[in-house]
């Protein structure tokens, strides 16, 4: 058992930090980038591709770096630290992760190589209005269309929303209802019958309403079999990456808050003289460190080939509770400045709120853990099923 990063992982962290701090060292640059489409900086994205980050978890034979969940967590945490708006978790870990998990060799070679090079932005079109956090689809239906694509084409009909980066994406990974469950499909951004309406999200990112009207689609993988378990697993890996991103966001929110308490003066003294405030900052630290331990652990479980779904639920629950605690207190301890768009800390809270709701919130994770909680006596985080 070892909770330390090796030197390569530390080098990776330093390199990513250097790159992102050049782009987002002050909050102003992020605000500018968020103000116009696509909501992230294409140039930074291209640099991330050059550095190998956009192919980090993919196999080398498909243009990736062949790295694991711990390296993914390192990058995600650095993204969170400066609130970089680049959609690393959404496009690489989740959408790319599904292609890597399910795709044919041909699909992997083409799509993953494009993602890794930064020439293909992928998005997972899965959420549907009126449902929440299901691993299966219900609002988009797939029907075979033998006249398309050498006789094995499909057509999709229905609506997905919100689709993160759905308007800008070059390729959509779409979950859709087939006989016998939920299958996955690839839809090109220029496909006929595809209508995308993008908008700004609460945290300054972008999402879209995506309508499919008999839109031609290619099955992801060898056949249109049920992929619910693959979606569940890919989302679990994305939840673990989000946990790391949230740690980065919370870490900065706490450090910013502590710094503010040390410098802001009221009643003739710095705010750090008021125990009512410093104790609350101490509690934020407690929340952060407990969440950090769980997030680190979950990435280690994924790395060890353990039960990622259960580990992701634990990380989701812990980072959700910590994120709400730290996000709300960071603003409150700042006072009015914390609610302004000009100051950084409110944007951290906004991002934490988005992360908390995209793939399942704390109550949702607690409910899933509760279903099995009486079937075992104790949890051994260093033992089965987490060690694979």
């Amino acid at each position, binding site marked *: 058992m*070892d909770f330390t990063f090796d030197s390569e992982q530390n080098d990776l962290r330093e390199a990513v930090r250097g790159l992102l701090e050049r782009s987002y060292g002050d909050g102003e640059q992020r605000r500018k980038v968020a103000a116009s489409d696509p909501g992230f900086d294409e140039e930074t994205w291209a640099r991330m591709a050059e550095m190998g980050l956009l192919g980090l978890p993919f196999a080398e034979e498909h243009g990736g770096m062949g790295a694991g969940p711990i390296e993914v967590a390192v990058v995600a945490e650095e993204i969170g630290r400066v609130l970089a708006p680049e959609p690393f978790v959404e496009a690489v870990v989740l959408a790319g992760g599904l292609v890597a998990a399910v795709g044919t060799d041909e699909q992997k070679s083409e799509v993953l190589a494009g993602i890794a090079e930064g020439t293909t932005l992928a998005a997972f079109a899965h959420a549907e209005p009126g449902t929440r956090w299901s691993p299966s689809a219900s609002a988009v239906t797939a029907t075979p269309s033998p006249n398309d694509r050498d006789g094995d084409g499909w057509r999709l009909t229905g609506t997905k929303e919100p689709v993160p980066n759905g308007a800008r994406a070059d390729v959509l990974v779409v979950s859709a209802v087939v006989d016998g469950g939920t299958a996955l499909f690839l839809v090109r951004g220029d496909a006929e019958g595809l209508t995308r309406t993008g908008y700004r999200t609460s945290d300054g990112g972008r999402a879209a309403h995506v309508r499919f009207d008999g839109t031609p689609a290619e099955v992801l993988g060898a056949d249109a079999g049920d992929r619910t378990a693959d979606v569940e697993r890919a989302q679990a890996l994305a939840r673990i990456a989000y946990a790391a991103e949230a740690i980065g966001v919370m870490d900065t929110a706490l450090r910013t808050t502590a710094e503010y308490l040390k410098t802001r003066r009221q009643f003739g003294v710095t705010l750090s003289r008021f125990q009512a405030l410093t104790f609350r900052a101490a509690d934020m630290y407690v929340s952060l460190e407990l969440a950090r*331990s769980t997030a*680190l652990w979950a990435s280690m479980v994924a790395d060890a080939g353990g039960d990622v779904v259960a580990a992701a639920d634990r990380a989701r*629950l*812990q980072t959700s509770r910590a994120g709400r605690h730290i996000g709300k207190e960071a603003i409150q301890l700042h006072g009015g400045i914390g609610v302004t768009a000009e100051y950084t800390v409110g944007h951290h809270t906004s991002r934490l709120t988005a992360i908390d709701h995209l793939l399942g919130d704390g109550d949702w994770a*607690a409910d899933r853990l509760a279903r099995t909680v*009486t079937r075992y006596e104790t949890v051994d*985080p260093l033992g089965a099923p987490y060690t694979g």
Partner: protein
Amino acid sequence: MRLQLSPELSAFREEMRTFFTTEVPQDIRDTVAARRHLSRDDYVRSQRILNAAGLAVPHWPVEWGGRDWTPLQRHIWREEMQLACVPEPLAFNTSMIGPVLAAFGSQEQKERFLPATANIDIWWCQGFSEPDAGSDLASLRTTAVRDGDDWVVNGQKTWTTLGQYADWIFCLVRTDPLAEKKQRGISMLVFPMDSPGVTLRPIELIDGSREVNEVFFEDVRVPSEFLVGEENRGWDYAKFLLGNERVGIARIGFTKRLLAQAKGYAQEVTVAGRPLAEDPRMAARIAEVENELVALELTALRVVAHSADGRPHPASSVLKLRGSELQQAATELVVDIAGPLSVTSFADGGSEVPEWARVATPEYLNYRKVSIYGGSNEVQRTIIAGTILGL
């Protein structure tokens, strides 16, 4: 980054588990599992078995019975002990005065006291807190005045846990009332509890237990050879001791076991024809406490894995703070599972209420102490805000 324990540590854990579950008498472990009070004899029997196997004071210097284990090994030793319902070696002996004597005592003191302390031939109690010196310990007023070869002690201590069983007391006394800083005028003395002038008065707690006491000193004569270390350096020794006291105070193994028991109790209680354990709110509450406990255990592992150089990891204050809160959360959970049965604490022969439900409320009430002792949680917050956040 690696999740699994090394094969050596896995074997170590297995060795500990096997020893604790097979060598410590079942009746003692049953008493702990049922959360009944242990007798003095239970503590002594259990610790002597551990000591004979080299498992009572592994953290002491090797020449006095220590094992030169890593912090992670010690963590595993303690957790396995708690999971197996083995009483931990008496903290006053093994975590408090033992390490102080080993570090600062004279050679004569070491030889006289350390083997007897490890084997609990001497039962120690702690004379630190006073009615007007709690978290502000340095304000203590018990005095020791030099008279020939003796110190003469007058004053009062309080919260002296299990003082009724104790043979000796280690005591902070004011030896220089004129010192510029109040911390500089304090010394540490040790003396027998049956010295003339020592009186013990039990304090009854809200659960009906009598585990803490007031101790009064009236012209107690202590030979000068029972001064620990140097005169007026007692505050340094106390800080050293309190640092050790906080090690293992999170009691994760204890909470883990209690939570496992709570799951069983929730199966026994029926609500509208279904086990309470199947109630979604109850199940979610158990899951939340359990997840917090997993987070705490992982944090403890991070701390012990990275404090090999002897300096505590900055997150260690989190362990005391959150560890005590989770012990309290688990005891509260058991009271809530017991529901109306939780008021039956003093029922005996004629009652059908299971024992776990009878002890639930006394334990819950008694455990309010854990966020107070060992540096109250407010002291821990002060440490976190000051030393970690720089506030």
